[in-house]
């Protein structure tokens, strides 16, 4: 009789656990999950968090923004479960246990003023990654004439002064470089950089997706310098990006060289609440939320599935 009872209890427990894993009834997830990190990911994490806590009312989320590096430091120190990191994870950080999960795509775009004297040549020929490297890294190209055969005028190279994901992504677009390899006058923050290049006809800068467009169109007074990705010396239709929709499509396709990855970072593979939250973010519901927030491009279904298989 006793063994029968034990077996019965065990079976009930197993069934309950089984259904928990499958159907995830809301009342079985509880506790507090904290996230900190990149400003670039913060708005998205908040939206995901709202939907997640609606689904699991016993879960409390504590999300704070303070820069990618803070997120990384916090998660490695165990102060938060998930760090939001808008740059590639350094090898030294991985050695300390950082486990990055690719959660969204974004892009950084080279920008110039709409009053640029070499505008016609730029929009016909674009600049190859090699030319950008010669401008930003080696300093071999210093004039618009050298770059695209425009008028004889210097290029005023601008970069971000604050350590940020956009600069890391731009440096990585040009090759195996870091932010401190980028030459140029350093301007603080994305809006500052955009304003500076808008005002300077000879300026060249780079900006995040969400700052380059206002509404569906380009921000006023700004052009995106086409990147001649296939190096054929002219701007092909796919390389000309002038609307938000087009930018999303090119980033999603994986063709755009300036595409950038956003990460959730956990210490070791994600467990418990963190795991449930990340799985939610990468689910279909999570993707719909991402699209409604705007400014981010979702992973393809295949990419999401591949990320989920990693833990």
């Amino acid at each position, binding site marked *: 009789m006793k063994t029968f009872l034990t077996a019965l209890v065990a079976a009930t427990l197993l069934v309950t656990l089984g259904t928990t894993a499958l159907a995830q009834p809301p009342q079985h997830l509880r506790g507090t999950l904290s996230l900190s990190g990149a400003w670039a990911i913060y708005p998205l994490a908040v939206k995901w968090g709202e939907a997640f806590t609606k689904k699991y009312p016993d879960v409390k989320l504590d999300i704070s923004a303070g820069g990618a*590096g803070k997120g990384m430091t916090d998660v490695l120190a165990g102060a938060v479960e998930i760090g939001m990191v808008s740059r590639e994870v350094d090898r030294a950080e991985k050695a300390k246990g950082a486990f990055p999960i690719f959660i969204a795509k974004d892009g950084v775009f080279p920008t110039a003023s709409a009053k640029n004297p070499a505008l016609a040549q730029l929009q016909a020929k674009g600049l190859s990654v090699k030319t950008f490297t010669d401008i930003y890294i080696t300093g071999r190209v210093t004039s618009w004439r050298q770059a695209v055969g425009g008028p004889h005028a210097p290029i*005023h190279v601008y970069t971000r002064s604050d350590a940020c994901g956009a600069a890391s992504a731009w440096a990585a677009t040009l090759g195996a470089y870091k932010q401190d390899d980028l030459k140029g006058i350093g301007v*603080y923050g994305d809006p500052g950089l955009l304003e500076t290049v808008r005002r300077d006809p000879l300026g060249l800068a780079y900006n995040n997706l969400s700052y380059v467009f206002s509404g569906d169109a380009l921000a006023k007074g700004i052009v995106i310098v086409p990147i001649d990705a296939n190096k054929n010396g002219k701007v092909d239709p796919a390389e000309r990006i002038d609307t938000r929709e087009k930018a999303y499509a090119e980033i999603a396709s994986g063709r755009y060289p300036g595409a950038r990855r956003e990460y959730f970072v956990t210490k070791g593979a994600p467990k418990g609440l963190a795991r449930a939250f990340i799985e939610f973010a990468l689910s279909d519901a999570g993707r719909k939320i991402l699209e409604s927030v705007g400014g981010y491009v979702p992973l393809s279904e295949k990419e999401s599935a591949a990320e989920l298989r990693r833990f």
Partner: protein
Amino acid sequence: MLQRRHIHDYIARHAMLAATLFAGGLVIAIAVALYLRAHPLLASQSLAALLRGHTWAPSRGEFGFLPFIAGTLWVTAVAAALAVPVCLLAAVYLAEYAGPRVRAVVKPLIDVLAGIPSVVYGVWGLLVVVPYIAETLGPYAQRHWAHLPLLHTDYTTGFSILAGGVVLAIMISPAIIAIADEVLRAVPREYREAAQALGATRAETITRVVARKALPGLAAAVVLGLSRALGETMAVLMVVGNWPHVPTSIFDGAYPLPALIANNYGEMMSIPLYDAALLGAAFLLLVLVLAFNLLARVVLVRATREAV
């Protein structure tokens, strides 16, 4: 009864001593903490190489601090050149010439200037000073000052030492004016009366008697202002160009130490030597400010000894 009063006295004296030691000890505690955190960098490279290095490329393990030291000194020097003469003249006017009604209007205005947050100065510099230098002053310098040292330029984006210096000069002015004004007013009236009784004009009284008596205080006002200039971060960072090189002209961009720390602190801390390098920069800044204060004190002691 007497006993209790003695105990009171004893406790009060020691409590005050503890408070004083605590305040003084803070400087040492901060310096030690910074030094310890910067130690990994100092252990891996020689101090001379760090101070003389021109290249800042942490990802390649190159940590040259010279551009940042030079940037700090340049911006502070430009701010001093712009602010000190104007501030001292303004303080003399307020203390010696201005009537009570002028004082009543001007003093609060200057005090408001002191209360404006530095980021507001930075935005103002970005919107007004930087474009003015890029569009007006820069092109003028390009045409007319090409052969002058310190003032020559091929082209300036406006993000420059001059822009940082202008913003800083305005930021440190209220403190310098306020202290200098107090110091001048503290000079006993009898000195002025005696000088004028001997037939000195007002200007002679001020330069020969009042200013000489007030010299240590005036110097302290300037030192305090410049110490703030050495460490001011946000407003300068927004307009100075943040370009790590050793400048040769006030129209070049520069990269002062505080800007280096503010731009990168928190972001790059998970990369081993970067952390040490930034705290090394903080330590260097602390040493720079202490050295500056020390130097000022030595000069001051000499000056007062000669004046008396």
